[in-house]
């Protein structure tokens, strides 16, 4: 039944769609849905997916790489630097503590010390994919729990390099014969002395940082100028693939490399563009990854040894949970944050698959030992989301200490409250004035040349097309209070408005209008704050002309304000009439008619209303009348 690529794709996609929607309907995390889908389509239930599950797992690990790249994008280098204490402190306590306890456990179960050591390394690592996906899905990335979990996972990504490096030391087998198939073992540098390896690792990190700034960003600018949307998608994928390849080449975890690449690019104008482009790929790949994990649970191994496996499984989760709890205690997390952390990282992660297979290739582990640990790993990954759900549903609500999710973040740069779209001459003036008041807007512009130039001037400008909802979302539209449109093209402005009115009606819109006619259409779209570029500047000029022919400036100032007031009123009145006219064919003539109507109105009402305040003539008139 298996074998056909199309058929497999159909199985995976259908499984995902059915199970994830059910999980979501029940209020569960999507991770659980994917895992369940994997179990169902896997070899032991429906049998749609057979042995190839393992290959799919390796392929889908790429989703984790993309996820870390995206997380890197959200962390600016200076914030990353601020997190160093949490990363090193919490990370090392968690890894060392877990390894110690689990090593004791495995030696007590009668395993050889080498086997116990490899097992304990595998156990110490948690699943970045499951934990971070769940955290992001619940929007908890900005809490102390979120950053702590992230710091620990990041430390694990770093420490896994040393673990992979040290495993061959436990083996008597020559590496070359066993090394095939898996990325980490395929590194060309394994045969070099340790010093060279370290050097090449440092070198490749430097390469990423330098390339990020001087190669990737200029490349993206060039691509953006071409103006073909799919080229940018290709470029985004190329970046992630390129970094991963380089990392695998020198033997670092590709996820860690991708994270670094993300951090380097987080300051660039393409941040939001990259985010919105890669997001769907990441989500699909991660889903595939979770399904592959579910499908790889070997129920035969469980059936052969149910008691041992259940016992070890529970003990491992207890050990991991206990160490995490203590770690969080030491770092003074509040109880509810602590429990969230404890339960979210208590599983064995995807790195275990790599470590264990590697140790198996080096003949440190036997087939049965490998099978047992793989099953346990997959089971912990499936069980911890359930425990986490129990924690959130039944334990946390009974605790008094609730931390508001809205709490301002310490580490990760948060989105600004104002979004400014269009940074031409009109928009940049707005941006400058806002900035002079310490109000920094998130700026979007679609002209790559301009973005490049403005960034050199120190503005926080991002490249992207604001009519795309996903880009607006990465720019933080969900938290934004105000969106300013300073877009030159009225058609694009209206598209942006329609997208926002539909999806984010709470955002206040402040819109530039080209002219009167444009303003009518905006009014009819329900926009209140309309700024006609042809109103105040023209009046300032007219005012200066009148001043030069002898009118007093103060009086003119007051009259200009009268004029604006009447004109705004008539604009709103005429907009309704405009709405009734369905036929826009004679647009030019129609506009002329409106212009005429205005002039007639001005003439009738007399825009320049006589001001009688302190007008001696006027007072004398009245006094004469009353005495007469």
């Amino acid at each position, binding site marked *: 039944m298996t074998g056909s690529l199309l058929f497999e794709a159909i199985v995976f996609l259908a499984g995902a769609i059915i199970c994830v929607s059910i999980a979501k309907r029940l209020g569960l995390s999507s991770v659980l849905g994917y895992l369940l889908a994997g179990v169902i389509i896997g070899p032991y239930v429906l049998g749609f997916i057979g042995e190839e599950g393992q290959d799919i797992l390796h392929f889908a690990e790429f989703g984790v790489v993309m996820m870390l790249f995206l997380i890197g994008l959200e962390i600016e280098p200076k914030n990353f630097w601020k997190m160093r204490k949490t990363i090193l402190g919490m990370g090392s306590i968690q890894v060392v503590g877990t390894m110690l306890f689990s090593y004791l456990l495995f030696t007590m179960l009668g395993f050889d010390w080498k086997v116990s050591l490899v097992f304990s390394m595998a156990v110490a690592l948690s699943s970045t994919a499951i934990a971070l996906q769940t955290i992001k899905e619940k929007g908890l990335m900005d809490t102390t729990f979120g950053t702590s979990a992230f710091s620990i996972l990041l430390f694990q990504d770093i420490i896994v390099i040393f673990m992979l490096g040290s495993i061959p030391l436990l083996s008597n087998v020559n590496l070359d014969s066993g090394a095939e198939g898996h990325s980490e073992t395929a590194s060309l540098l394994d045969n070099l002395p340790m010093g060279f390896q370290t050097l090449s690792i440092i070198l490749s990190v430097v390469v990423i940082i330098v390339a990020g700034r001087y190669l990737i960003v200029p490349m993206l600018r060039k691509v953006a100028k071409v103006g073909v949307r799919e080229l940018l998608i290709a470029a985004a994928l190329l970046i992630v693939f390129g970094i991963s390849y380089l990392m695998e080449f020198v033997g670092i975890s590709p996820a860690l490399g991708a994270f670094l690449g993300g951090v380097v690019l987080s300051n660039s104008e393409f941040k939001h563009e990259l985010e919105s482009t890669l997001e769907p790929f990441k989500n699909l790949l991660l889903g595939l990854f979770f399904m592959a994990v579910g499908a790889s649970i070997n129920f035969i191994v469980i059936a052969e040894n149910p008691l041992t496996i259940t016992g070890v499984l529970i003990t491992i989760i207890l050990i991991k949970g206990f160490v995490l709890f203590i770690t969080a205690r030491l770092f003074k997390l509040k109880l509810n944050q602590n429990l969230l952390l404890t339960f979210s990282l208590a599983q064995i992660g995807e790195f275990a698959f790599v470590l264990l297979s590697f140790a198996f290739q080096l003949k440190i582990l036997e087939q049965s030992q490998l099978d047992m640990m793989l099953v346990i790993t997959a089971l912990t990954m499936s069980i911890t989301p359930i425990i986490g759900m129990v924690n959130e549903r039944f334990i946390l609500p009974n605790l008094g200490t609730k931390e508001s999710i809205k709490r301002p973040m310490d580490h990760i740069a948060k989105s600004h409250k104002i979004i400014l779209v269009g940074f031409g001459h009109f928009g940049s003036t707005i941006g400058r004035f806002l900035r002079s008041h310490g109000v920094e807007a998130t700026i979007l512009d679609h002209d790559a040349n301009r973005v490049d130039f403005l960034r050199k001037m120190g503005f926080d400008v991002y490249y992207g097309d604001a009519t795309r909802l996903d880009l607006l979302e990465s720019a933080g539209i969900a938290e934004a209070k105000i969106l300013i449109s300073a877009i030159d093209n009225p058609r694009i402005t209206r598209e942006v408005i329609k997208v926002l009115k539909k999806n984010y009606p709470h955002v206040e819109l402040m819109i530039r209008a080209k002219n009167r006619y444009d303003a009518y259409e905006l009014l009819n779209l329900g926009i209140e704050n309309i700024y006609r570029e042809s109103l105040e500047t023209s009046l300032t000029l007219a005012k200066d002309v009148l001043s030069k022919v002898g009118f007093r400036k103060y009086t003119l100032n*007051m009259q200009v304000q009268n004029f604006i007031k009447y004109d705004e009123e008539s604009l709103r009145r005429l907009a309704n009439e405009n709405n009734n006219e369905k036929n826009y064919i004679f647009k030019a003539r129609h506009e002329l008619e409106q212009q005429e109507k205005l002039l007639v109105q001005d003439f009738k009402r007399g825009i320049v209303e006589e001001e009688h305040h302190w007008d001696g003539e006027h007072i004398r008139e009245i006094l004469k009348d*009353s005495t007469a």
Partner: protein
Amino acid sequence: MKKILILFSHPHFEKSRANKLLVDRVKRKDGVTLVDLYEQYPNFHIDVPAEKELLLEQDVIIWHHPFYWYSCPPLMKQWIDMVLEFNWAYGPNGNALQSKICMNVITTGGSKDIYCSEGANGFSVNEFLRPFEQTATLCGMTYYPPFAVMGTYKLSETDLNKYADKYEELIELLQDNMPAPTMKNYYFMNDIPQLKTDAI
């Protein structure tokens, strides 16, 4: 209950500790309309017809402002100049404000002991406010003595809160239709020292 209009004018409201407390205390009270003139007319372009219409609905008009150079900030004066029109507020047919109550609520940086014949400012606050008193009188309004929060630079948060309490109390008294002589018996009305040479 009498309807009260507070015309508040302060060009640097965001920097005023005292006025923030005072305004916050009274702005949401029932029957009180507070117009923040500098917020409403940042260009000094006062909407005279709208202001006139609003005045007609009121029983009590309070000019609330900091005491700048022994007078009010310029927009407050602009309001008086523009809104109190000849033949509407005063003049042969000007009786729109007839028998309404009018008073100033002010804040001064200097403490009350320098506002007397022997202090640095030479005159009492009541004397400095004569132009406002006469403006109200000419418009046929009854002018009440001012409520003054003095020495604001030296007042603590607690002191300022006490003044805010008193301001609130004053608003309630005005709403209850307290006649002028009774008003004068209240301590917050008379916190301006009696002068040796001049009796008010």
